C-alpha cells in the first residue's frame, strides 16, 4: 500500500473502524467475554491506526492534512470532506486513546446487556472522531447529532439513580441548542451554495456573501449557543452535573474527556474560523461568562458531598479556562486552550475512572462514606494523588502547561481577567486536595472499608496510560505544542486582519 494512498484513506479508516467493529459485534453471540475482548481489540486497532496521524504529520505545512474530498450528495452540495490540522488531530488521538481505557474500565462494572453497551460505545467513538475530522458543515452536523443518541442511551440504560431524567435532559439540552446551529448552517448554504468550511470561509473573507453583515451576529450566536451548551458555559451548564453523576463510568470518561471538547473545538473552528470579527466583538461578555464558570464551578465543586459531582463541577471550571484562552485572541492563549483540552481529557478521564473504581466496590460516591482509604488501598491512593496533582496544575504535570498558557493569554488580553482566572488555580487546589484528604488520609472511618480490595491488574492497566500521558505532557509539552502552534496561528492572522479592516 503506497503511502499516498494510505494518507488519503487514513481518516476514513480511523473514523469508521469503530463503527465497523460495532456492526460486527451485532453478529456476535451473547458471550460477554468475547464481546469485551473484541471491543478492546477494535478500540486498540483504532488507536494504532490513529497514531499514523501524528507520525506523518507535516509540521510546517499550512492548512489541513490527510484531506479527502468527495461529493456525497450532488444537490444540495454536500461533500464528504475530511481533514485535520494541529487542533483537531490531537483531539482525535485523545478520543482513540480514551476509548480502549473505557473498555477496560467497564470490563466488570457492566454485566447486564454487555453487547449493547459495547456497540453503543463504539458507535459513539465513530461519531466523536467524525466531529473532529469533518470539514463540511453538514458532515460536521451529521456527526455532532450522531453523538447524542449513543451517549443518551449509555446514560439512560447503564446509569444509576435518576438516569432517565439525566439522559433526557442531556438529549434535549443539546438537541435544542444544536438546532440553532443547523439554522445558521442552512442560512450560510442558502447564500453560498456550499457547505464546505473552506469555501464558506473564503466567501465570507472576500465579502461575497450577500446580507452577511446583518446576519453575522445571529449566525455567530447560532453556532455559539450550540457550542456553549456543550462546553458547558455558565449558565447553560445545568445538564452536566446530572448527566455525569448518573452516567456509567465509561460514559463519564468520554463525556468529560471528549464530548465537552466538541464545544470548545467548535468555537475555535467555526466561531473564530468563520466569524472572526463577531468573535472579537463578543469576546468581552463571553470571557466574563468563562470567568464566572471558572470561579462558580470551583466554588460549587468545593461544597459537593458527592465525589463524582465534584469532578463534574471541576470540569465546568477547567473548561472555563479553555473558553477564556480561545477568546483571548492571543497565540499563546489559543494554544493553551487546546492544551488544556487535551490535558483535561486525560486527567479528568482518569479521575472519573478512579471514581468508577471505588463505586464498583462501594456503590456510593459520597465522600463521607470514605476516609483513610490510603491504608487499605495504597496503589489506588497513589494513582489518585498523581492524577489529582496533574489536575490541580502541578508543574511538570500536564495541567500546569495549559493553564499557564491560557492565563498568560488572558493577561495579554486584559489583566483583570487574568487575575480573576488565576484564582481558579487556587480554588482547584482547594477542592481537589480537600477531597483527597477527606477520602484517603487519617484513620479508616468506616471499619468495613478496611476490607476494600486494591486495584486489580486490569484497573492498573487502564490507569497507567493516563498517568504516563499526564507526565509526558507535562515534561515535554513541545511534542504537542509544535504541532498545535502553527495551526493556531493560522486562526489568528485572519482574525486580526479582518478586525483591522472592520475597524477602519
Amino acid at each position: 500500500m503506497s503511502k499516498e494512498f494510505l494518507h488519503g484513506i487514513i481518516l476514513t479508516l480511523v473514523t469508521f473502524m469503530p463503527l465497523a467493529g460495532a456492526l460486527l459485534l451485532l453478529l456476535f453471540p451473547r458471550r460477554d467475554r468475547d464481546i469485551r475482548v473484541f471491543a478492546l481489540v477494535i478500540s486498540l486497532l483504532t488507536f494504532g491506526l490513529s497514531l499514523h496521524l501524528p507520525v506523518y504529520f507535516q509540521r510546517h505545512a499550512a492548512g489541513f492534512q490527510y484531506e479527502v474530498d468527495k461529493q456525497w450528495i450532488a444537490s444540495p452540495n454536500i461533500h464528504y470532506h475530511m481533514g485535520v490540522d494541529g487542533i483537531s488531530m490531537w483531539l482525535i488521538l485523545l478520543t482513540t486513546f480514551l476509548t480502549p481505557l473505557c473498555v477496560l474500565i467497564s470490563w466488570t462494572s457492566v454485566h447486564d446487556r454487555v453487547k449493547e453497551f459495547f456497540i453503543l460505545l463504539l458507535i459513539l467513538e465513530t461519531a466523536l472522531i467524525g466531529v473532529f475530522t469533518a470539514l463540511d458543515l453538514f458532515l460536521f452536523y451529521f456527526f455532532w447529532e450522531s453523538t447524542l443518541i449513543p451517549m443518551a442511551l449509555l446514560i439512560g440504560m447503564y446509569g444509576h439513580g435518576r438516569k432517565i431524567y439525566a439522559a433526557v435532559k442531556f438529549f434535549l439540552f443539546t438537541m435544542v441548542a444544536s438546532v440553532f446551529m443547523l439554522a445558521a448552517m442552512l442560512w450560510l448554504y442558502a447564500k453560498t451554495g456550499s457547505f464546505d468550511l473552506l469555501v464558506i470561509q473564503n466567501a465570507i473573507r472576500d465579502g461575497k456573501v450577500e446580507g452577511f453583515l446583518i446576519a453575522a451576529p445571529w449566525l455567530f450566536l447560532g453556532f455559539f449557543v450550540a457550542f456553549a451548551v456543550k462546553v458547558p458555559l455558565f449558565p447553560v451548564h445545568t445538564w452536566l452535573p446530572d448527566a455525569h453523576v448518573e452516567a456509567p463510568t465509561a460514559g463519564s470518561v468520554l463525556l468529560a474527556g471528549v464530548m465537552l471538547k466538541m464545544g470548545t473545538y467548535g468555537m475555535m473552528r467555526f466561531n473564530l474560523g468563520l466569524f472572526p470579527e463577531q468573535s472579537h466583538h463578543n469576546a468581552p461578555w463571553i470571557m466574563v461568562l468563562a470567568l464566572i464558570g471558572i470561579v462558580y464551578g470551583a466554588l460549587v465543586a468545593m461544597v459537593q458531598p458527592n465525589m463524582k459531582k465534584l469532578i463534574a463541577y471541576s470540569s465546568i471550571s477547567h473548561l472555563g479556562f479553555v473558553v477564556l484562552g480561545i477568546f483571548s485572541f492571543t497565540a499563546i492563549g489559543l494554544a493553551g486552550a487546546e492544551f488544556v483540552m487535551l490535558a483535561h481529557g486525560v486527567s479528568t478521564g482518569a479521575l472519573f475512572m478512579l471514581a468508577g473504581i471505588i463505586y464498583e466496590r462501594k456503590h456510593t460516591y459520597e465522600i463521607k462514606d470514605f476516609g483513610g482509604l490510603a491504608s487499605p488501598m495504597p496503589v489506588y491512593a497513589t494513582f489518585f494523588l498523581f492524577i489529582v496533582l496533574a489536575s490541580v496544575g502541578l508543574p511538570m504535570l500536564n495541567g500546569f502547561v495549559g493553564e499557564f498558557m491560557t492565563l498568560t493569554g488572558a493577561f495579554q488580553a486584559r489583566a483583570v481577567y487574568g487575575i480573576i482566572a488565576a484564582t481558579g488555580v487556587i480554588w482547584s487546589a482547594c477542592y481537589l486536595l480537600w477531597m483527597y484528604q477527606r477520602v484517603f488520609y487519617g484513620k479508616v472511618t468506616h471499619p468495613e472499608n478496611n476490607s476494600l480490595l486494591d486495584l486489580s491488574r486490569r484497573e492498573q492497566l487502564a490507569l497507567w496510560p493516563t498517568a504516563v500521558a499526564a507526565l509526558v505532557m507535562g515534561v515535554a509539552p513541545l511534542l504537542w505544542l509544535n504541532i498545535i502552534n502553527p495551526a493556531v496561528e493560522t486562526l489568528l492572522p485572519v482574525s486580526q486582519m479582518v478586525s483591522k479592516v472592520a475597524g477602519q
Partner: protein
Amino acid sequence: MISFAATALPQVIPQSSDYVRILPELVLAIFGMAVMALDPLLGDRATQKTLGAVGLLGTLAALGATAYMAQAPGLAFWDMIRVDTFSVFFHFVVITVAAITILTSHEYMAVQQLRAGEYYALILFGTLGMALMSSAVELVLIFIALEISSIATYILAGFRRRFAISGESSLKYFLLGSFATAFFLYGVALMFGATGSTNIQVIAHALGNGPIPVLAYAAAALMFVGVGFKVAAAPFHVWTPDVYEGAPAPIVGLMSTGPKAAAFAVLLRIVFEASVPGAFWLIWISAALSMTIGNIGALVQDNVKRLLAYSSIAHAGYLLVAFAAQPELGTSAAMFYTAAYAAMNVGAFAVVTHLASRDERYVTLEDYAGLGHRSPLLAATLTIFLLSLIGIPATGGFFAKFYVFSAALKANLVGLTIIGVLNSAVGAYYYLRIIVMMYMKESREEAPVAPVSLSLGVGLAVSVLLTLYLGILPGRVLDYADEGARQMLHPTEQAVSQVSP
C-alpha cells in the same frame, strides 16, 4: 370537456399508449378483483394466506408496471392523465406502502382472528385511487381518484368489527371525510366557473394570463379544505387521533402514509402547477398551526397510536412548509419528504401492529416498557424509525426536514423555518419518551413478545433499509424528485396539452 371543441379531430378511441399510462392502476384493479373472486372460491382457513399472497403479488406487479409505464411518459385519455417522473415517483411511494401494509397485515389478521378476503382487495383498490391521484391532471378525475381511495380506507378503518371504537373510527372518518370531499368538489366547481376548465394546464394558463377572478380565490380555499383534511393538516386535523386509535394498526400505517402522499401530490399540482391564487398564506398558516398543534398534542398522549396520530399532524405541517417555498425546490423537497415519511411511518406502525397483539391490547406507552430487554431487535428497529421521525442524521427523516427547511430559507421564509425548527426540537421529546420506555424502564410483567413472522420481518426490513438509504445516500432519490419537480412544472413538448383555451 370544453376542450374537445377546440381540437380539430377529437381522438375518440383510446390508443394502446393510453392504457400503458394507466397500467399500474389496471394491474391493481385486476388483482383486487381477483382477490374478491378467489375469496369465495377457495376454502376456509387457508385462504387468508393465499389472498394475502395474491394481494402482495398485485402490488409487486404494479411496481413492475410502474417501471414499465415510466418508459412511456406523456398524456393519456384526452389529457386527463399525465405520466411523468412526478407521477411515477408517487406511484412508487404509494404502491410500496401498500406492499408493506399487506406484509404487515398478514400476521395481524391471523392474530386478531379476522377473516376477510375483501381486506386485501380494498387495500389494492385504495392504492389504485392513490396512484391515480398522482397522475391525474384533471380536477374531476382527481376527485374520482380521491373518492376511490377514500371509500376503501373508510371501510378498512372499521375492520375491527368486534370493537365499537373501530366502528366509531370508521364512521367519523366517513362523515367528516365526505364532508371534506364535498368542499373539494365545490372548489372544483368554482374553479370551473372562474377559468372555464377543470384541466390543470388550462387553469394555469387562464390564471397566468389576465386578471384573476375573485371566484378563483374561493375555489382555491375550498379545495385546500378538502385536501387539508386528507393530509390531516390543522385546522382540519381533528378527526385524526380518534380515527387512528380505532382503526386496525396496519391500516393506520397505510392511512397515515399512502393517501397522505397522494393528497400531497394533488396539492402540489394545484398549488404549483395550476398556481392557484392566495395559496401562500393559507399554507403558511396551516403549516404553522399543524406543526404546533401536532407536537403539543403529542406531548400528552399515552396511547402510542394517538401519539403517532398527532405526530403525523406535525409532519403534515413540516411538509406544508415546502409548499410555501419556491415551486421547484418546494416540490422536490415535498416529494422527498413524502417518500421518507412513508418509509419511516409505515415501519413504525408495523412495529406497533406486532406489539399490539390480540385485540390490540398493548398500545399504551407503558406496554413498551422494557422492550429493549424483551425483544432487542424489534426495539432497535422501532428506535431507528423514531430517530428518523425526530430527524436525526443518517435517517431519511433528517434529510426530509433538511430539504424542506433549506428550501424555505432559500425562499426567505425565516419565520416559518424558525417555527418549524423549534417544533422539531419539541417533537424530539415525545418520540424520546418511547425510546426511554423501551430501554430505560423495567417492564411490569415479563410478557414475552411473540416472534416476528416472516412477512412482517420482510416488511420491517424493507422499511428500515429504505429509511437508512434515504438517510445515507439520498442523492439518487433526490435527483429523481428534482427531475419530477421539473417535469411537473415545465412539461416537455409531448406532455403539454394540445388544447388551448
